[in-house]
């Protein structure tokens, strides 16, 4: 006789095998679709691998994709530690980018003053953008999923208003863009800027802080079992509030890096879905902050693959479909990995 039970703590090895299978499944589906489109798989694979990993431009692209993904991934991940779904990283990212751009555009300081100020402004704006949903969730029990999501649209339209109206570029006639921001995050190599290493440092610090601190413990406790947290003397509401506000600050800092490091303008398409892709990155990373790094790397490879595929007339939206399929496959595989067959004796 045997029966299946669901493990509450799943061994990492089971998760890993499940995900490898899921990833294999996704790439198999992708291969099938490409074949149906009449593309030669060998050619596509060679082109993707050589132009992503074999050229300076490809490697730089990966680094530039990873930077915002790490920040929004970290933002969503932090909220998830407290059991909260921050679907609003996109809006917080834009709020941060807007505030940072304001500093860069209108304050007449040299770069070494502007950049830290812009980073502060970005974090504060991101934090403020999530503060309203955070307060609603912590003290009034309003679902943060809805409120954070809806604020994304407000942020997006606010940016569109600014860059087509009061902040619109009148110098070069760039569309839906502010003027070029002259303070730029210094580059390390090619177009890769210091935002990348900073994002890696933030993720590492986040892992250390949450893993070892009292705040981290109380946060996790408040998220996983608010009642128990309450009886343990933790005031749950302020913890939840702080979690979402810090989450917004991280996304806002990501927006600052994108605006002043990569795009150099405030621009309508700036957020590029990084806020939503951050959810995927956080889901892939599960409990570990350091796992955000390989997760962001995988997303960056998939996004860059999308760039390569577009030169073969595969639509950009197919990449979104691949991403969706990946999340789906991994969610299923994680769930299946939790089930074990238990041999029972009569």
């Amino acid at each position, binding site marked *: 006789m045997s029966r299946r039970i669901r493990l509450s703590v799943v061994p990492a090895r089971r998760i890993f095998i499940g995900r490898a299978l899921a990833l294999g499944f996704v790439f198999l589906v992708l291969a099938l679709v490409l074949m149906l489109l009449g593309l030669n798989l060998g050619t596509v694979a060679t082109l993707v691998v050589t*132009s992503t990993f074999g050229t300076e431009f490809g490697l730089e692209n990966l680094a530039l994709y990873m930077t915002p993904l790490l920040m929004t991934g970290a933002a969503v991940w932090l909220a998830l530690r407290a059991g909260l779904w921050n679907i609003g990283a996109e809006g917080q990212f834009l709020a941060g980018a807007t505030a940072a751009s304001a500093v860069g555009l209108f304050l007449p300081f040299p770069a070494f003053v502007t950049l830290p100020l812009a980073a502060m402004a970005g974090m504060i704006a991101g934090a403020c953008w999530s503060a309203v949903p955070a307060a609603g969730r912590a003290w009034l029990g309003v679902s943060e999923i809805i409120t954070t999501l809806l604020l994304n649209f407000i942020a997006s339209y606010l940016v569109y208003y600014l860059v087509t109206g009061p902040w619109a570029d009148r110098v070069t006639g*760039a569309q*839906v863009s502010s003027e070029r921001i002259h303070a730029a995050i210094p580059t390390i190599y090619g*177009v890769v800027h210091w935002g990348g290493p900073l994002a890696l440092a933030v993720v590492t610090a986040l892992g250390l802080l949450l893993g070892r601190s009292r705040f981290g413990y109380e946060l996790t406790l408040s998220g996983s079992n608010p009642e128990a947290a309450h009886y343990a003397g933790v005031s749950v509401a302020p913890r939840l509030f702080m979690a979402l506000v810090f989450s917004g600050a991280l996304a806002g800092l990501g927006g600052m890096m994108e605006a002043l490091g990569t795009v150099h303008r405030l621009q*309508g*398409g700036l957020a*590029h879905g990084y806020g939503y892709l951050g959810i995927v990155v956080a889901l892939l990373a599960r409990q570990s902050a350091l796992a955000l790094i390989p997760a962001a790397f995988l997303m960056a490879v998939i996004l860059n693959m999308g760039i390569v595929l577009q030169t073969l007339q595969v639509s950009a939206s197919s990449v979104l479909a691949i991403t969706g399929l990946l999340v789906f496959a991994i969610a299923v595989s994680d769930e299946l990995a939790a089930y074990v067959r238990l041999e029972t004796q009569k």
Partner: protein
Amino acid sequence: MSLKPRSLLTRRSLLAAAPLAALPLTAQAKPRFAPIAEEDLLVAFGHTSPINDGGWSQMHDKAIRALKAHFPKMRSLYVESVPYSADATRLFRQFVAEGAQMVISTSNYGDFIKDVADQAPDVGFLECDGNAVTSNLAWYYITHWYASYVIGIAAARLSRTGRLGYVASFPTSSVIASANATLLGARSVNPEATMRVISINSWFDPQAAASAGAALIDSGCDFLCGIMDDPGYLRVAEERNVWAAMWNTDMRQFGPKAYVSSVVLDFEAYYRETIAARIAGTWRPKGTFLTLGHGVDRDSWGARVPLAIQREADAARDRMLAGWSPFVGPIKDSNCQIRVPAGQTMTDMEIFHWSWQVEGVSGLV
């Protein structure tokens, strides 16, 4: 893929090179765009919308496909719907990574293309509606304002109310030039004519264009024009029994009764000359205007446009083809300030960079 080693471009070397920048470009280096065999040439095109959008990108794609007949061994690749975001930079970088010697964007991408051009100095970049010329980046554009002026004359004669409606994308200079030229044409025969503008923040959004068209008709306009890739507002004009003029291509099938004309585009000859020059090694970055009759024109008139009106508008077109410019001062802006003094003629470059709406236009800037 070998790319220029970046380590050469340090701040120190740039500072050291600063005094050299004053020298003319030609004095600097070896010829950058040496002759190339047709079979070795890879040209990459980036389009702003799908190539079957029925408008702007379709007209470019048509011209690009015609290149095949002249350069059968040339290889080309393209990407549609290149977003106006950092992903545009990535796509242009990908073109370079795949080995393109010539990258052509059929729409304005500003810094997104210029940054890549600066990083890949041996690749020739060409930007439609661009505004920068560097050692390897050039721009080209059509002087569509002459065709718009011709259509404006017909608009004023056809409109009973003298109120024209304009469906705009963004308040950028090419759109401002298009709207201004249309109204100046209209005012040349009806000084009372006015134009109301609605911007829909897109070049291709049939739903929004149709709503904007309907709103303009509701506010009293009986002639719709605009700068859209799709026939969205033409359908509305057809239903509501008003006139409409379009852009890019002949769209009369979508509103045969309402159709007046269109600013039609033809990039074939220009692309052919450009590729031939690149192969021969004579291509050099510069700004190029495609003029009336050579890349841009008004479409043949709609079936219901009376012959007398066609003749009147075409008389102006004939004069322009002979070298006359209608963009002569005094021209006032919408605050009634004279911006072009009497007797002064606006150059194509000034029109291309038009940043204010003329008297009678409202809602654009």
